[in-house]
């Protein structure tokens, strides 16, 4: 069991760089290189990565594809902690998902891009800020207000779209970590009442408005009952009420007006699981662990991290992320192959797999379209899309399907195609600059390539032998001359292809 004082091994450092950023970049500032991180304590490394001031970038352009490519280009070049900044922005973009095409239908391309870009900038600015603040900003974020119909949620015709998802997805989850429901349909209806009458002004951008005459009041709608949420008897019984509240919680203690949405948010952040632990803290931590570490983290791990970070009440992201970075959960998947049944593995996101690979082999996509300069000369965005991901365009409010969806046959073929395009980028992809071409022993060459990509420990001995057999044509050519153009072009390019297409690189 390690802690913040545990020094990073080389495998740990590689894992950390991969997890917090995109691949192991060839070009990186000195302090953030794997070689410099080795020997630092986990705590010191966490502080190194988490001490930064977020940048003001936003992916805005005249058309959506240019905007998306602008973001890809931005990520491709980020060094130091700013790779983590982008990893976090993508996390929030998935967690509080809105998509361009829905806004495009509603408001047209120009405003839709503007709203998505503005939201993206907000996530970036707050990426290591306060989670409750972020939820409050999302409540009145123009892209979100459009996407989940807050703008058409009025007293006469209430719309439950946001009232449901703010609970199910953004804060609580449909069920707690014990599998018990967190709220009732009545709670959804009541929360939706708080959000009646909210609009935004696209032209001004982030400015939001509250129309009193569209706001639902108890005086006007007595049949809708009192404005309270949670606190009713929970089906698990045993005296437990929804949210762990002794009685239903009013969200109009400050009157019936625009204060209601903040009051609702405050109540959501006090909601408890049926075993008495804070629901929001667990829900967010669980999801961060799924994102940065692996699927299905244990309840014990989640609780340990929440406690270590003092997250309940502070809602500060930096201590929470620090507690994740110093916990064993960040490193346990880096153990050498072969893996035991209980070793946790996670499928790398398409955007991580592709941009991480490009950074790891120092290949620069070409032109504004970010064309991969080889093979079928596909554009980066098209390949990532075929893998199942388009930035600024998550498929629904649930964000992207993670894990198993990323390794469908369609998604894998797109990954293989991307890798083929990369290694076939003749004259641009230069493995001779990535490893020592004076190596002649096939085992040394395999190790040099997997070391350079940071995945040596992820290959079994048998797989390593397979790669050696590939280089030697089953032993026919026991040594290789990588300074020979044809040998290098065929075997070294092929070796990179095999390693990048292998499960060792697809998962982490």
């Amino acid at each position: 069991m390690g802690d913040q004082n545990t020094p990073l091994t080389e495998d740990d450092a590689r894992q950390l760089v991969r997890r917090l950023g995109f691949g192991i970049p060839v070009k990186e500032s000195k302090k953030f290189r794997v070689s410099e991180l080795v020997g630092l304590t986990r705590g010191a490394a966490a502080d190194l990565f988490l001490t930064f001031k977020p940048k003001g970038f936003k992916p805005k352009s005249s058309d959506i594809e240019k905007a998306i490519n602008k973001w890809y280009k931005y990520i491709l070049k980020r060094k130091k902690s700013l790779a983590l900044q982008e990893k976090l922005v993508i996390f929030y973009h998935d967690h509080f998902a809105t998509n361009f095409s829905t806004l495009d239908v509603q408001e047209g391309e120009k405003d839709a891009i503007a709203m998505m870009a503005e939201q993206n900038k907000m996530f970036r600015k707050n990426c290591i800020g306060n989670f409750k603040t972020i939820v409050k900003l999302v409540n009145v974020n123009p892209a979100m207000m459009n996407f989940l119909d807050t703008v058409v949620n009025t007293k006469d015709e209430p719309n439950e779209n946001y009232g449901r998802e703010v609970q199910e997805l953004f804060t609580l989850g449909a069920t707690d970590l014990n599998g018990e429901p967190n709220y009732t349909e009545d709670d959804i209806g009541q929360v939706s009442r708080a959000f009646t009458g909210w609009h935004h002004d696209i032209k001004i951008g982030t400015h939001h408005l509250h129309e009193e005459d569209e706001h639902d009041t108890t005086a006007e709608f007595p049949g809708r009952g009192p404005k309270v949420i949670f606190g009713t008897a929970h089906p698990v019984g045993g005296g437990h009420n929804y949210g762990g509240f002794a009685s239903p919680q009013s969200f109009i203690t400050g009157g019936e007006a625009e204060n209601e949405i903040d009051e609702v948010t405050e109540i959501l952040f006090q909601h408890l699981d049926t075993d008495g632990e804070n629901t929001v803290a667990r829900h967010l931590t669980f999801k961060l662990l799924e994102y940065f570490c692996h699927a299905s983290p244990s309840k014990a791990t989640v609780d340990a991290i929440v406690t270590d970070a003092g997250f309940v009440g502070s809602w500060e992201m930096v201590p929470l992320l620090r507690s994740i970075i110093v916990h064993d959960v960040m490193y346990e998947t880096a153990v050498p192959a072969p893996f035991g049944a209980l070793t946790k593995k996670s499928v790398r996101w398409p955007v991580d797999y592709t941009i991480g690979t490009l950074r790891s082999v120092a290949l620069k996509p070409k032109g504004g379209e970010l064309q991969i300069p080889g093979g079928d000369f596909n554009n980066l965005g098209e390949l990532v899309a075929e893998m199942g991901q388009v930035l600024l365009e998550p498929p629904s409010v649930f964000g992207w399907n993670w894990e198993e969806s990323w390794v469908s046959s369609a998604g894998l073929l797109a990954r293989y195609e991307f890798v083929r395009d990369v290694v076939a980028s003749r004259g641009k992809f230069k493995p001779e600059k990535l490893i020592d071409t004076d190596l002649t022993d096939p085992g040394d060459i395999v190790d040099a390539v997997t070391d350079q990509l940071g995945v040596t420990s992820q290959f079994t001995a048998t797989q390593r032998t397979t790669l050696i057999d590939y280089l030697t044509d089953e032993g026919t050519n026991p040594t290789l001359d990588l300074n020979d153009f044809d040998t290098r072009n065929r075997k070294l390019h092929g070796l990179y292809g095999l390693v990048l297409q292998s499960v060792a690189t697809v998962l982490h």
Partner: protein
Amino acid sequence: MAITRRQFLKRSGAVAAGSALGPGLFGNPFVRTALSETIGDRYLIVMLLDGGNDGLNTVTPVDNQGGTLRTNYEGWRNAGSGGIRLLPGELAATGIDPDPNTGANLALHPGFIGSGAGAGGLKALYDLGKVAVVQGCGYPEANLSHAVSSGIWETGDPLGLGIGYGGTGWVGRYLADPTTGYGGTDIPAVNISSSVAAEYRQTGTSVIAVSRLRRFGFPFDKQNDNGTQLQEYEDAFLAIHAEASASAQPGVAQAGDAGSSTFSASQSYPALHNLYNDDPDRAVFEALYPNSSTGRDLKEIAKIIHGVETGQPDIDARHFWLRNGGYDTHSNEGGATGDHANLHNEVASAIKVFWDDITDMGAEDKVCILIWSEFSRRIQQNASGTDHGSQGPMFLIGGKVNGGVYGNHPNIDPAAVDSKPNTIYSQDPLDPFRSTDFRDVYGTVLNHWLNMPPGVILPNVLTLDTGFPVNTYWTVADLDLPLFVP
């Protein structure tokens, strides 16, 4: 959604049982087994209307007859600006048989008449007696979360999240059942999607996800070939993935299986694209498919069916999945025109051309299309759309389907709905509006189309409807046998 969608189960891409994978597989990746006895020479296509299709504006009462359905409908759905009410005149061209309970005349949403090469749409197929409309499908205690309710329909487990079935999908369990005869290396199912649908999640056989067959070939670095290089690369690729398949770690094993099966499928499936397009009989229809996602997806399915029908080697898939998205019409739903109408038009037009295509192939009697949605929508509209609701209709379409209206229209009387208001699922045998359980529709399909005793796939179905005797399993008295023509 996080938990169900992200469990690292064998749902994705191509998946095969680890124990079935040995070196022999890769020498001969397509060890074709004898055709399964279970589905015979038939096909099943599962289609999801994603987001919660508004059932009340899908099968709509045109009048009252012996009840008050139309009056109640007009009470919930507004005419005029922002209104989504379908007027009797707008429903005149899409009439179907009356509601079995009230006798009210019913009509399909006017969008279902289709357009272009698909003109006539589902209405034309209904008139041919090929469409079964099953009303009021749901389950007890409707869950109105997209994720949870989808999970219930996909697993066939109304307890939620497929707890009783280990998260496996109902079609997946059927494919994996030993009696179907599918081995770990067979590919009995193709999903036209970037990922495999939860209904197909299982552990026994391979299910592949394909977006477009044309682009499904393995991407070799062909500039790199010296005559033997590609074979050497293939051998190494397969060996590395076979080793991964042997991993004790389930995610690694799954990704290894997926890589191997993807490679195998990439060697046989892409050819179906040209095979179809180069066949003069098929090319006629190729040009007719609407350029919509449903049109393009059904065309891919037609290419695979064409491949099976013409006996192509290593092409065995008889189970398919596709989705049409956009049904979460909280706003801007529209009535006879607008978003909802456009979705129905897309579905109906594409299915009509697909139908004409497979009929021309002589395969129409072998095909059954099952259409579902995770829930219906609030019976009372909001400003311009509808929030989440409970029961809605399902469709079964096929040459051997005994067309007509099955099941009762849900009871939309203001006195009979809950406080939201949503209709209430009821299995009271004395209730004239008695609901249809979606599992009964699955059960009928399993029983009479897939030749699988439904209890094998839905074993807990009998114990969940507490308080009712076992013989009420078939919630619609005439659903079981007559739904399919023998």
